[in-house]
């Protein structure tokens, strides 16, 4: 494809410019684990993975967490996190096997031939140094450019990546730049030393959907312009499909399918790939709102103590019993603050709350136990929302004792029923949270909320930390529980696909204001206001060429 003559290649001679840039052959990656109750032993994380990558090509690696995609990406730099090491096979970079290279040899590869862009640029940049110094650091150490040339190159890259004020943005410190911009600066850092290959490790996963499309467009433009080859790692197939020439689907450290992008998303052969392509296919019949709402939020304005900025201004919503209201918006839109106001954690400056026809006291400590019981919450991070020293039966049993004074055999019985309701079964009662998978943890949190027999559950980004297929299972469970227990959900999310799947009505939030509100069919039917239009059109579509089209439409 795009043949790219690169100045850094000269020193390495004509080892293999005719062959592929990266050739991974029967790669096996292992790690030594040290369990509490057993002897240390070696586990294989990735087994028998092979692929080749030509210069200027982009290969997407996709799979759920634990599939080994990041581990393979880092193996292309002969790097392993937390004791992971290459235990078999070869990693041929430009014809040279780097799998057994010494530290000294690897230092010539890393930052020179292969560069890395991490998931969280906010954590990946050193807070103590200016951005430009970090961007040009490896270029200067490679001595492929003078300080002046490297700076000029960095500034040109900032410009290519569409960063505002490319001349001066490098003089800022990481904390002075937004997350989306940092992700682009990190891409510039990877490109600055003119490598042959860049490993992108979930570079847009932590970003809002409207920011994600901008960063994706910038990355794609930079790849095209420089002709660098890339490994693009993501759990989001729709994203990978926009930037990759080929896609490799991984599951449990093994290759499931490896085809060109169009074949993967249009004619997937393996069932697992088909599941990934067809994820979020839940059908939910929208219900009309009832005459009297269960929860009425009227004209809420909220200000955090010690500040004078309104995080919420004049927000009103209504939620009917047994229905789902989705609150959508990007980070900083005030959607989680709304949950804090409803739960009484942040008394509003203005406005009122009505629950079940009665005024709800604004402050948590003024609320009765009955009011607390009626209103439960499920969180994004299920593992930190549970006490790691409590067993599942203690976690689910506590609200039973606290609200209903159920103890002993009856409590045990009820816990078993609840475990049944979340499709886990009694066998999990004596397990600790650490022994559960991400999806199981979230299910236990759902059971804990259900144990109080609430009429409203606030779900704060409950599926955001989960893999798509697991998230799908959680959404199906929530819908099923809703039809059985007639519980209402206030569903806070940034993910529009989730909203489409489960909501009855939708409130779109932007900068603390409710910009669009109504039943789902109305909200998702044009004409749209500008922000909703932007939000909806930013969600990556599972089809080839969607990003190119969006770039043209928006002039990104």
């Amino acid at each position, binding site marked *: 494809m795009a043949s790219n003559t690169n100045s850094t290649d000269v020193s390495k001679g004509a080892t293999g410019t005719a062959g592929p840039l990266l050739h991974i052959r029967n790669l096996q990656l292992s790690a030594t684990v040290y369990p509490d109750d057993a002897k240390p032993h070696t586990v294989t994380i990735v087994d028998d993975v092979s692929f080749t990558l030509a210069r200027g090509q982009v290969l997407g690696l996709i799979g759920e967490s634990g599939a080994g995609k990041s581990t393979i990406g*880092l193996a292309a730099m002969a790097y392993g*996190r937390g004791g992971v090491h290459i235990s078999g096979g070869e990693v041929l970079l430009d014809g040279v096997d780097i799998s057994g290279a010494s530290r000294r040899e690897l230092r010539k*590869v890393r*930052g020179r031939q292969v560069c890395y862009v991490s998931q969280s640029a906010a954590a*990946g*940049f*050193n807070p103590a140094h200016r951005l430009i110094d970090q961007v040009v*650091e*490896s270029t200067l*150490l490679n001595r492929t450019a003078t300080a002046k040339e490297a700076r000029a190159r960095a500034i040109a890259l900032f410009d290519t990546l569409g960063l505002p004020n490319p001349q001066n943005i490098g003089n800022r410190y990481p904390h002075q730049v937004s997350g989306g911009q940092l992700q682009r600066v990190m891409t510039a850092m990877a490109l600055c030393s003119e490598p042959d290959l860049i490993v992108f490790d979930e570079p847009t996963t932590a970003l809002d959907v409207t920011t994600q499309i901008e960063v994706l467009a910038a990355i794609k433009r930079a790849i095209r312009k420089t002709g660098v080859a890339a490994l693009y790692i993501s759990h989001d197939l729709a994203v990978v499909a926009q930037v990759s020439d080929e896609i490799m689907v991984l599951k449990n450290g093994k290759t499931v399918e490896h085809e060109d992008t169009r074949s993967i998303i249009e004619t997937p052969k393996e069932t697992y790939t088909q599941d990934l392509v067809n994820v979020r296919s839940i059908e939910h019949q929208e219900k009309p709102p009832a005459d009297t709402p269960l929860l009425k939020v009227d004209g809420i304005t909220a200000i955090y103590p010690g500040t004078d900025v309104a995080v919420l201004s004049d927000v009103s919503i209504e939620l009917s019993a047994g229905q789902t209201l989705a609150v959508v918006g990007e980070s900083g839109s005030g959607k989680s603050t709304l949950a804090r106001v409803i739960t009484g954690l942040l008394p509003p400056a203005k406005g009122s709350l009505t629950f079940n026809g009665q005024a709800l006291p604004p402050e948590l400590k003024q609320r009765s136990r009955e009011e607390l019981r009626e209103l439960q919450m499920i969180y994004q991070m299920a593992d930190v929302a549970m006490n790691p020293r409590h067993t599942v039966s203690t976690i689910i049993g506590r609200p039973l004792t606290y609200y209903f004074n159920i103890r002993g055999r009856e409590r045990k019985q009820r816990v078993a029923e609840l475990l049944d309701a979340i499709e886990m079964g009694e066998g999990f009662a004596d397990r600790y949270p650490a022994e559960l998978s991400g999806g199981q943890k979230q299910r236990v949190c759902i059971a804990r909320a259900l144990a109080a027999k609430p009429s409203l559950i606030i779900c704060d980004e409950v599926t955001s930390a989960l893999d798509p297929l697991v998230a799908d299972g959680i959404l199906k469970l929530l819908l099923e529980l809703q039809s059985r227990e007639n519980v209402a959900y206030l569903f806070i999310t940034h993910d529009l696909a989730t909203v489409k799947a489960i909501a009855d009505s939708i409130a779109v939030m932007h900068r603390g204001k409710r910009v669009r509100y109504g039943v789902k069919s109305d909200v998702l039917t044009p004409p749209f206001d500008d922000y909703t239009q932007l939000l909806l059109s930013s969600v990556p579509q599972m089809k080839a060429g969607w990003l190119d089209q969006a770039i043209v439409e928006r002039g990104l």
Partner: protein
Amino acid sequence: MSYILTLLAKRLAISALLLLAVSALIFAGTEILPGDVAQSVLGQSATPEALANLRRDMGLDEPALSRYFGWLGGIVQGDLGTALTNGTDIADAIGKRLYNTVFLASTAAVVAVPLAISLGLLAVLYKNRWPDKLISGTTLAFISLPEFFIGYLLIYFVAVQLGWFPSVATVYDSMTFAERLNAVALPAATLTLVVLAHMMRMTRAAILNVMQSAYIETAELKGLSAFRIVAKHALPNAIAPIVNVVMLNLAYLVVGVVVVEVIFVYPGMGQYLVDHVSKRDVPVVQACGLIFATFYIGLNMIADIISIVANPRIRHPR
């Protein structure tokens, strides 16, 4: 920039308040001791009339509060009062000794601080390998030994056996700088060995803590050398905890030298304080206490100021 100035001003104000509180504590502390200065001057057999006369002469019959403010007012003007035992001016007597103590402490600090931080860096670079274990083991051994023992070991081996440095650290005014350094070599070495381990281990721990960060992985994947990663990417982010422990140890060098000064018969604050405590010379004890407190509070304040200034988030707000 104004944000950082406000922070610094606040920190200064806190130090001033703290110092005032300490002065009140010192005064109150000496006040609640049984017996008073008049009693200790005249002894057990003094008649009540003689005691009353002396108290009136020394102003001891006035209320405690007015005596406290009189004392404080004098200190602010540089008047620390007069010693009871020999009637000399305390400020004069302390001046020279304070200089000696600070000289000894600075000599020890100039060696100990760079050495401790370098050893800490070295220990991180060779983490869990033999250089790390050797450094940790030796420094721990020295912190575990009482300082008088280290002092006598040095006197026996370095002064008596090898004869490199004098065992008694006598200093006088006409000495040159080099002669002075030679004289304080052994007490300074003792102090260095005592404070080394704490600073070195804190440096090691602080840097290792930073080494867990994602940006260290970024640096590693940029192909940087181990030394550059530790020195350029880890150390700047570990400054705050390191500076804090360094300042704590510097304060100890000034305040905690009593034993070492006595061993090496060094004419510093420590000896002066010990002499006058045994003689119950309350004004001298108060003055020494206040000076020590000033050093402690001042050095810790400097540590906080450096931590504030070293934080890019505060230095360059959004």
